[in-house]
């Protein structure tokens, strides 16, 4: 999977490294700002109220 992504990245190695880091940053941002905030309230370990 990762080897395949690496082969799709255009440009010489140095450019590819930058592109790969950008991809990782994009995925991490998507997780932190969209996916995790959505998942968080659906998980059972954060209920602090009674009744």
């Amino acid at each position, binding site marked *: 999977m990762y080897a395949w992504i690496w082969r799709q990245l255009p440009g010489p190695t140095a450019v590819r490294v930058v592109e790969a880091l950008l991809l990782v940053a994009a995925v991490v941002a998507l997780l932190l700002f969209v996916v995790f905030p959505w998942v968080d309230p659906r998980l059972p370990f954060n209920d602090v109220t*009674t009744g």
Partner: protein
Amino acid sequence: MSGHAGIATAPARHRRPEPPHRTGGDRVRTVVRGFGEVLLTLGLVALLFLGYELYITNWFSAMKQRDATAALDDRWSNPRGTVDRPVEGDGIAKLRVPAFGPDFDFTVLQGTGADTLASGPGHYVDTAMPGEPGNFGVAGHRVGDGAPFNDLDLLQSCDAVVVETRDTWFVYRVLPLADEAAGWTSGKGATPQCRGVTPLPEPYPEVPGQQIVMPWQGEVINPVPGGSEAQLPPEQQDSLITLTTCHPRFSAEQRLIIHGVLTARYPKDGPRPPALADGLRG
């Protein structure tokens, strides 16, 4: 690695080798490698989620808490600020626990919805307001989202919980713990810190300073904690405070409950309550 015996051409330098003919074994290897990469990725995502829950939600929460505190200060300092019933998410009071240090200072927001609790401790809307007869009920996170109630289990009887409103300081103190209630007046109850703290009289059921209940036991935030709503007319009710959070830490199987009773009130144009200087627990 063995050479490609089937390729007869001379090795071409500065050119990528032609992809070798894929065999069944290659395909299996690709699938197995892809599967392994997916597992590794899921592991990293789980780690990232852990970091998000334990640290990053605290940063988000600290920003929201700062905004809520600024809005509340603004409202308090505005002489024309109205005293309407607050709406969900509004700051209503500040909560301090001197035993947790001088930096334990949270703006309590109206309501206990997920968004509200992500900004700070939340007031159960159907319970009394600070200082009123009845039970001022407040919920707070124990892990992540600022975790205001992380150390609630460390509170001892007579520890001060100071609630600041627009014009008044209310000093609540934690009620005697279950194993301290017997012999309270001759025991810990005789210490100066415990002035005004006694086991609640009849018709209150036993209301310990700290208890662990099941999630559905909403009666702990009733005006008569653990009792029915109509047990005592409002004018005869003590002014209590009840803090709730999840228990054990990292789980929501149970709830940790702290009950306190109002022992003093100070107008804010006078001196600050001495309880604010109560030392850190050693």
